[in-house]
């Protein structure tokens, strides 16, 4: 650049088109981009408020940090990048084109002699210009000859001039890509928001009540939004999420979900998510059906429709409600639907059941512990007690993932507004060769579910456990259970009635303690009443009494239901043990009621994303340009050769230059020097 006095406009132009500025912009853009990856974008505003506190929430919101890539300052950086790159092209283009065309045949001998790569030969006999130009042409050089004084000729040759096109392509590509992106950005919308023509709707109201101010017509050229459609229903709009609220984007067609389905691999993992939809054109009235899958969108009227997500669309659910702490062994009927609340009353306690999800398939790795973690209990002495029951589940690890059937997800909210979440499975699940009904509970979404396991009886039902549970909780039955136990235990022994009475009453006592809080209360009782050194023995005795008494309770409960007595075998004993564990775990279940899912009618909903992006092809053309540019720049090397010849004999001067002084160039220069010397010698 020639030096002259700079006006302020000139200085600004110099600055904006400078490399320094461009590099700084690249760095600023990189750093700004990091923000959006560290701070998760587009979360509900309430989450941000909770995370940062009121002050920082507002401050970050002002800076647009919840949607960094559409914040005004980010757009400004991009615009500056476009400006800087454009000016850079504008500034360098004439020079580049000149350089591309020029052979530099007017180079002076003095300047050529300053080159680092040069050679000179003295030849006695004449060397024709044609010999040399032919040599150059064979190597892909184009040349021009320029007569000099004293009968000399300068041959100026060059190769790889298109390298400079690479520079132009690559930089033009950046401008094109950014412009394409800006077309698809929401700048017009932002402007309309600033002018008050459009406004974000923050309230969750029915779509037909959303005011005109928050609706975008189907003529809108560029948008990206989502909608959830339950099976059998249709929409003609989508939601564009904006800041703390949304806008309604109208579509040029209506779309109805006929069916959403998931196909699975033999291993149980999902293979296909697909929505069969019916599209009806608003203008022509024409309608057709199409199945959209992931990676295979449908494009209609310039709107691309993608399979983005799925959820429950309001499945109908039927339950048996079991009151876990009532002596009543019979369930009560209960109904609900996903995304709806149902009332549940237990005595004078009122609960609201909020059904949040229904899942038809659950692929679980039971060895991994996700569905198998037992209900959380106080640690310590309890674990010693628990250790006496051989439950290999936690020790064993298997890698089998398989489908364990439908489950329902709901929240049980008490009158104080506190909620516990549940995850109940319809079908019994096999764990260590035994079947259980699983129900997971957790008090906060941050925790994993802890699962209670209700053992399954010989009729594949929960009834056997519930009858035994009703017997164990029923204080009126304890005496009878204890007496039966005593009769069986002391059979054939002559024992004083006094002793038998004592036996009965201590059994009753064990049952009473256990019914109050399971193993935990029993453990605490032993801890309190037995000195440390005798505890282990005491635990053994108490557990033996409890198990045997529970077995009698089991037989009694069967008799009450008109069933034959169970055989005294490992299976029955294991069932009673599992029942005792489940009973004990009930005290940590967080709810007095277990809602057992018995029937369902699944209704699914699909989540579709729809976009219209006129800038897409602009961006892709820019990308092609970028690839061409990059390859031209890296892999076309520009080289120039000058040969100053005296055709009728004398010195031949050779000089060579390249845009890049890399090792390849050194090698090439050596080659030319070698070959030219050979050529001249001949």
């Amino acid at each position, binding site marked *: 650049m020639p030096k002259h006095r700079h006006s302020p406009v000139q200085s600004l132009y110099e600055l904006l088109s400078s*490399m320094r500025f*461009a*590099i700084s912009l*690249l*760095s600023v*853009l*990189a750093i700004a*981009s*990091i923000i*959006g*990856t*560290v701070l*998760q*974008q587009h979360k509900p505003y309430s989450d941000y408020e909770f995370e940062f506190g009121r002050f920082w929430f507002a401050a970050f919101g002002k800076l647009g940090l919840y949607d960094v*890539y559409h914040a005004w300052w980010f757009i400004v950086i991009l615009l500056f990048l476009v400006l800087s790159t454009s000016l850079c092209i504008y500034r360098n283009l004439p020079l580049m084109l000149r350089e591309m065309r020029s052979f530099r045949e007017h180079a002076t001998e003095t300047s050529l002699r300053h080159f680092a790569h040069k050679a000179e030969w003295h030849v006695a006999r004449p060397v024709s210009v044609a010999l040399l130009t032919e040599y150059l042409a*064979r*190597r*892909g050089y184009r040349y021009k000859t320029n007569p000099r004084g004293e009968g000399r000729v300068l041959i100026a040759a060059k190769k790889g001039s298109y390298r400079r096109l690479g520079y132009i392509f690559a930089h033009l590509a950046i401008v094109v890509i950014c412009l394409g*992106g800006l077309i698809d950005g929401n700048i017009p919308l932002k402007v309309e928001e600033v002018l008050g023509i459009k406004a974000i709707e923050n309230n969750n109201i029915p779509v037909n009540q959303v005011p005109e101010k928050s609706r975008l017509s189907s003529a809108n050229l560029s948008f*990206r939004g989502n909608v959830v459609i339950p099976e059998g229903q249709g929409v003609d709009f989508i939601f564009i999420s904006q800041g703390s609220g949304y806008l309604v984007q109208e579509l040029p067609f209506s779309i109805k979900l006929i069916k959403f389905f998931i196909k699975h*691999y*033999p*291993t149980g*993992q*999902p*293979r296909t*998510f697909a929505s069969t939809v019916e599209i009806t054109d608003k203008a022509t009235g024409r309608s057709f059906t199409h199945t959209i*899958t*992931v*990676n*295979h*969108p449908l494009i209609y009227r310039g709107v*691309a429709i*993608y399979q*983005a997500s799925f959820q429950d669309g309001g499945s109908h659910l039927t339950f048996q409600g079991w009151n876990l702490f009532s002596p009543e062994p019979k369930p009560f009927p209960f109904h609900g639907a996903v995304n709806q609340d149902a009332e549940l009353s237990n005595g004078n306690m009122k609960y609201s059941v909020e059904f949040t999800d229904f899942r038809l398939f659950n692929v679980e790795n039971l060895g991994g512990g996700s569905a198998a973690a037992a209900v959380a209990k106080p640690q310590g002495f309890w674990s010693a007690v628990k250790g006496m029951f051989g439950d290999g589940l936690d020790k064993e690890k298997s*890698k089998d993932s398989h489908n364990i059937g439908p489950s329902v997800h709901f929240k049980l909210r008490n009158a104080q507004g506190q909620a516990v979440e549940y995850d109940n499975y319809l079908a019994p699940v096999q764990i260590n060769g035994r079947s259980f009904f699983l129900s997971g509970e957790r008090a906060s979404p941050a925790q994993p579910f802890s699962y209670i396991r209700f053992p399954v009886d010989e009729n594949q039902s929960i009834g056997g456990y519930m009858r035994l549970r009703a017997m164990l909780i029923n204080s009126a039955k304890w005496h009878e259970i204890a007496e039966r136990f005593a009769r069986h235990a002391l059979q054939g022994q002559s024992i004083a009635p006094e002793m038998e009475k004592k036996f009965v009453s201590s059994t009753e006592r064990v049952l009473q303690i256990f019914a109050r809080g399971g193993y935990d209360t029993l453990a605490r009782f032993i801890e309190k009443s037995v000195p440390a050194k005798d505890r282990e023995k005491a635990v053994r005795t108490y557990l033996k009494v409890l198990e045997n008494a529970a077995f009698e309770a089991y037989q009694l409960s069967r008799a009450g239901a008109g069933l034959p007595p169970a055989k005294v075998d490992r299976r029955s004993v294991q069932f009673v043990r599992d029942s005792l564990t489940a009973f004990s775990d009930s005290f940590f279940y967080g709810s007095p009621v277990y809602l057992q899912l018995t029937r369902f009618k699944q209704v699914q909903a699909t989540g579709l*994303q*729809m*976009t219209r*992006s006129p800038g*897409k092809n602009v*961006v*892709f053309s820019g*990308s092609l340009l*970028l*690839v061409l540019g*990059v*390859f031209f*720049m*890296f892999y076309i090397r520009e080289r120039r050769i000058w040969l100053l010849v005296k055709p009728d004999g004398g010195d031949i001067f050779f000089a060579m230059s390249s845009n*890049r002084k*890399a*090792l390849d160039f*050194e*090698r090439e220069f*050596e*080659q030319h020097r*070698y*070959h030219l010397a*050979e050529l001249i010698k001949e």
Partner: protein
Amino acid sequence: MELVHSPDEQASFLKKLSWVDWLYAVSLIAGAAVVYSRYGGSMVLFAKGILSLVTGLLVIEGWYWKPVRLLVAVIAAVGLFAVSLYHGDLARAEQVFWLKYLISSQSAIMWMSALFVLATGAYWLGLIARSAFAAKVGSSLTWSAVAMGLIGLLVRWYESYLMGHDIGHIPISNLYEVFILFAIVTSLIYLFYEGRYRNRQLGAFVLTVISAAVAFLLWYGFDRHAAGIEPLVPALQSYWMKLHVPTNFIGYGAFTVAAMAGAAYLLVNKGWLTDRLPKEEILDDLMYKSIAIGFAFFTIATILGSLWAAEAWGGYWSWDPKETWALIVWLNYAAWLHLRMIKGLRGPVLAWWAIGGLLVTSFAFLGVNMFLSGLHSYGHL
């Protein structure tokens, strides 16, 4: 630097090809023709396109870089031998001697890991003891490791189809598989420059990074039980995967080689190991070339990713963390290239920058999966 003494090096590329080159090309094309005639019926148009493209690329690569011919021949022969041993039964991987101990995919990958570690040792020995022989052994071991890795991947591809027709897919779909790919691609890029510059002194540096990748691979496979073949999730069932993932790894591999050249440059620049490492100019040139090739391929990979995203996610650019970090990596090397090509900057600053670039790249490759959530959640740690 050697001089090429043939008078017409440009025009006579085809003339210079030996009968081995032609045999190689004919065999490859014949192989592709056999594949086409046997399986053409079940191939979609795209698969046919890929087959022709890969055949063509392998021919040109083999002609341009001679050792590739032997590599392709070996992996084709051993791969076919392995496939022939299965008789369509996956269980034979544990029963047949050759498969169990050598060329079932898991065994081959274990051999690859072992060979890479041995190669690292040999290269270091060569560097420290100034033994050209040890370095040569390192080179051979690296070639063998690459062959084993490629055989492992090919056999794994076949095994995935044995698990079920609809489960079969190219083994570049999860973190375990792409780590193998990373080790192979990085080695190949290094080996190319090793041949080009006739210099084995950088092997110790590059192979150290590859050994670290192998250590991660083994930990990930054994401790996290991630070595199994899993069916593809719906989002990955696209032909774009075959293009996007390998292209990306050429970028990652080249950036790794560049960073190691940068590390060696810094040592030489400080006056350490000057008699054992290549000259500054060579390291500088190597660094530039690796970054250039890495940048070119990374650009293509990112564009391919955006074409895929436009088809799968509903937008060519979603500012997903992985995308954003890809942009950051790209911007970083764009700045590097500007400084070097336009400002003409040389020296330790660029070497440090290349090393820093590898850290940024590693974060984009691994860190995003570990620390950030987003759409690219295919490899969990």
